[in-house]
């Protein structure tokens, strides 16, 4: 949680300064008055006011709001449904024009997911992972990747050489690793640096 403690002439001024520092509006913060100001007499005994202001940003709320706004500016009105999963929070989008938001091989969906994660976690200390999904795209993609993994593993064994896959985001690479984990004839590893990191399938006895 972001938090500031400000001392100023009056409570109002201190709160204003705190809001400016946090770049937040009054409805998104909690204000605790630590010390009220005292006027004093002829400049004697005057005391400044101290307030503690805490930002109440909810990553999930920020994420949903950001997503809806961006989609609408792209000309797509979306409904967002939130589901909790062991891998994180899933934001499921539904719309008539969903294809625009998914893009070729999910590249738009992945870009939106990356940006949503950045925006959602900007003002909070703990990192909350958000997964974007649309029309079950992630599940369908997972099936495609599993098939690809099996196919390339047998290719690697057939030519007895390592086979490298196209660059993929970490979430998709994980699917390949997990799929071939139980296959003792091949080993998988990743190579290169993001965003060009790719999976390599190597025959164990190469």
């Amino acid at each position, binding site marked *: 949680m972001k938090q500031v403690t400000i001392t100023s002439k009056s409570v109002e001024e201190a709160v204003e300064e705190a809001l400016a520092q946090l770049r937040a509006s009054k409805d998104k913060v909690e204000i605790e008055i630590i010390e009220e100001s005292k006027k004093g007499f002829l400049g004697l005994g005057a005391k400044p006011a101290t307030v503690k202001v805490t930002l109440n940003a909810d990553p999930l709320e920020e994420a949903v709001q950001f997503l809806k706004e961006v989609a609408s500016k792209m000309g797509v009105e979306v409904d967002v449904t939130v589901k909790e999963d062991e891998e994180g929070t899933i934001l499921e989008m539904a719309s008539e024009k969903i294809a625009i938001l998914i893009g070729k091989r999910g590249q738009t969906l992945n870009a939106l997911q990356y940006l949503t994660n*950045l925006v959602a976690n900007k003002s909070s200390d703990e990192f909350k992972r958000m997964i974007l999904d649309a029309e079950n795209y992630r599940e369908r993609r997972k099936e495609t990747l599993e098939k690809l993994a099996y196919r390339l593993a047998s290719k690697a064994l057939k030519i007895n050489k390592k086979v490298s896959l196209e660059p993929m985001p970490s979430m998709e690479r994980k699917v390949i690793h997990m799929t071939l984990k139980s296959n003792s004839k091949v080993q998988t590893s990743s190579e290169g640096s993001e965003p060009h990191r790719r999976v390599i399938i190597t025959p164990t006895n190469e």
Partner: protein
Amino acid sequence: MEELIETIVKALVDHPDDVRIEEVETSSMVTYQLSVNSEDMGKVIGKQGRIAKAIRTVINAAGTNESKKINLEIV
């Protein structure tokens, strides 16, 4: 399009009031010149340009119906 870039960028930076976007149009291409507070440069570019790339992917997806190529420059 300008609104879309503005929505994304303002949500990412610490100084949303300093976000400026200028549109430069030629016969085949529209270029958006984005400038942000110097403290926020990293927040729109990202490690190895990852954030900039994600922004470009999103605006290109939004611009598929337009005939001109869309370009985003960070200045």
